């Protein structure tokens, strides 16, 4: 198949950037990133600079790949990362627009690569259970109902890619933040620090410049792991509890 690509090129964070147009020949068995590999080989052969994009595992789990494809983070397929998107979902002659994830809190590094270290700082603010190595009791001493473990697991499958932020008109990170808060708040091990955790993580989220949630729910629709917005509801509940509930050091 012959494709026309309109790819966002931007030298660095301070460059204005703009679309460049390329023609590329692909086949339907390729993944989207393999199609971009083909483009980059063409560019290198012409001694031009290849398009920079983040990628690593190429099996949909590391969360490195990003990019907005025809206006949608990770492209048109639901619950699919860019690396798992295959070209059989496009047609010969298509024009495809490819842009970086856009958000104030995700500054562009180069071309399609953005800086998502804000996510790490939010986890550092409290996205953990305070347990040192060696302190743990027997794993079966903490019984967790199957349904609870399963719900916590669903939240914990977030890959930290940032598609939720890119999809949100407010560039809100609430799906990402709530997934971690929900995962840990659901489990008995995580309840002890729940108030402190939600306070700290929400504060960090605000400081990083992410917007607020206004219930658009585009985040859930675009999330490659199908993380539910019900976690945002739980986060809000946890937050209110932490404000109006029993006082706890923050």
């Amino acid at each position, binding site marked *: 198949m012959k494709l026309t690509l309109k790819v966002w090129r931007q030298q660095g964070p301070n460059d204005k950037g703009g679309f460049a147009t390329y023609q590329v020949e692909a086949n339907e*068995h*390729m993944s989207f990133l*393999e199609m971009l*590999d083909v483009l980059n*080989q063409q*560019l*290198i052969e012409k*001694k*031009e*600079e290849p398009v920079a994009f983040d*990628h*690593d*595992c*190429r*099996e*949909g*789990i*590391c*969360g*490195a790949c990003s990019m907005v494809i025809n206006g949608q983070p990770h492209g048109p397929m639901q*619950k699919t990362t860019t690396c*798992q998107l*295959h070209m*059989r979902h496009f047609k010969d002659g298509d024009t495809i627009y490819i842009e970086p994830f856009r958000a104030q809190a995700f500054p562009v*590094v180069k071309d399609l*690569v953005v*800086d998502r*270290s804000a*996510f*790490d700082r939010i*986890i*550092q*603010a*409290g*996205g*953990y*259970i*305070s*347990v*040192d*190595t*060696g302190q*743990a009791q*027997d*794993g*079966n001493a*903490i019984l*967790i*109902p*199957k349904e609870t*473990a399963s719900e*916590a*697991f669903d939240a*914990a*499958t977030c*890959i*930290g890619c940032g598609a939720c932020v890119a999809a949100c008109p407010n560039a809100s990170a609430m799906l990402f933040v709530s997934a971690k808060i929900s*995962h840990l708040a659901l*489990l008995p*091990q995580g309840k002890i620090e729940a108030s402190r955790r939600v306070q700290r993580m929400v504060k960090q989220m605000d400081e990083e410049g992410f917007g607020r949630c206004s219930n658009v729910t585009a985040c859930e629709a675009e999330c490659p792991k199908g993380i539910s917005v019900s976690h945002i509801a739980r986060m809000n509940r946890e937050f209110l509890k932490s404000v109006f509930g029993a006082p706890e050091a923050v």
Partner: protein
Amino acid sequence: MKQLDGHIPPGPLKEKWTTYRSTMPLVAPNNKLRLDIIVVGTGLAGASAAASLAELGYNVKVFTFHDSPRRAHSIAAQGGINAAKNYKNDGDSVWRLFYDTIKGGDYRSREANVYRLAEVSANIIDQAVAQGVPFAREYGGYLDNRSFGGVQVKRTFYARGQTGQQLLLGAYQALSRQVSLGKVELYHRHEMLDVVLVDGKARGIIARNLLTGELERHAAHAVVLATGGYGNVFYLSTNAMNSNVTAAWRAVRRGAYMANPCFTQIHPTCIPQSGEYQSKLTLMSESLRNDGRVWVPKKVEDAEAIRKGLKTALDIPEEDRDYYLERMYPAFGNLVPRDVASRAAKRVCDEGRGVSPTGKAVFLDFATAIERYGQSKAHAFGIHQPDAATIRRLGEQVVEEKYGNLFEMYEKITGENPYKVPMKIYPAVHYTMGGLWVDYNLQTNIPGLFAIGECNFSDHGANRLGASALMQGLADGYFVLPYTIGVFLSNEIRTPRIATDLPEFEQTEQEVRTRLESLMQIGGSQSVESFHRRLGKIMWEYCGMARNAEGLRKGIQLIRELRKAFYKDVFIPGSMDEFNPELEKAHRVADFLELGELMCIDALHRNESCGGHFREEYQTEDGEALRNDEEYAYVAAWEWTDINQDPVLHKEPLVFENVELKTRSYK
């Protein structure tokens, strides 16, 4: 050649670790605060080590070339993690896990290391649970287990098909907590390009800030490499695109020994290659072999018809199918170890019975499991004479609960629905048992330089069992290194903070700069990628699933020629002083071009077959690996000399005091 000493503590096997741990020199808490440690890599081993060391009080600097520690390739591990908990009451024990691992590794690993690994395995599960890792549970709230290859008990803990992700996030969160407490300094998008030795001890690294291209010096009292394996030397593997050998290889170039580099694990269940453009291969978890049955048609004509698209799997009647693993290895059936399953797949495909257009695929069929689960579920629902459609629907539900994400991934990649038609799978490079030589303390032969996780060679011998990589990475990071590094550091409490303006730092940085400059200056016409692909083909052809002396010699020759061509004609766009992924790749491929030759040299020297190392000249009558314990029961540790010169072989004899060396049998 010298004989290497693994520094294995004396005493009976069962007491070695406990006694050693209780009597080893310690570093007092106030002294820990004055000691600095560099950890390179943030996968399971690196993140767990960095967090645990910081909790003890050491000052830790941790480096990752990713944009976040959570992207390390441990995240992609699917199936599970082993632990000798015996929760299933099925006869598991520390001894049995130890024995299975030694046997699975075809008697090419150290008894003492493996026993220690089995001992601490149970603590890992406890630690992970305490961190909030959502392992699969039963209805009563207890932890669930499943079974993996090469064993006859259920000891594998799992979190659906994303166990690696959940365990890594646990370690990442522990690490993040130490970052917030100021005990860990995190350097993301930084790649280690060399290790700095001062007076023969590892005292720091040279790292490149990948965003700016700037070279930085970082000093510490000790350096820990947790940089994973080198499977990407084959270009196509289940490793992530950026996984590489550079950190380990640079240590080798500074004098560290590389042990058993030819021991590569070819995983039997991967999605077959579909074209020349392909950039990587995707694993389908071994856990699928709990329920999937592997088969090919009995008749070559049927296989041909399938390849041409004239027939599908569903057209082949039961009696014309060859469930070859069940036929050849009735005791373990579809759950034989990976090396055995891979070779069997290669054999049936070589016979012309492969089922994809390339002829390189076998079926992994879930129909029997769907039927069985469907019957059982119908019974549980009180449906006494369920029709076929009901059974199917209920059975598919159970299979989805167990393997849903894997089935989904398969469908995304291939466009075929594995609930309806059997999966097609073929072996692919997955893991490297070889790695930096380390002693019982996980220290390389360079004092102060440690290697943990897949980066070292220590625990899996010539073949790793499924669900043991996560176990080893976390054992090293949480429960072994935090103790054993103290043996070295207890002698360093009087060493002041290491300065980065020492001449050794100056010189090493200059050498790195020169190396990068010379790569940039080649200014040839071929892309890095094209060299990497060619190297991968040579490795797969001559140092892959089956090897022979003639092929290996040819492989070495071809690699040398390719390396020459690389240094004459590679082209790297952009400049050194900026974000330049092509330059990163070029440096990694340059190192692979040296490692690949060493792997062939190692494979050529080992005149026996064992585990994943199958030399065609050494096989039994029915095609099984034929070991030579008289001459090769040792670890081959290679010392680098110079480019195009033979490396020097050092041997660490493997002494088996507790297990009897037998021919592995899974029949």
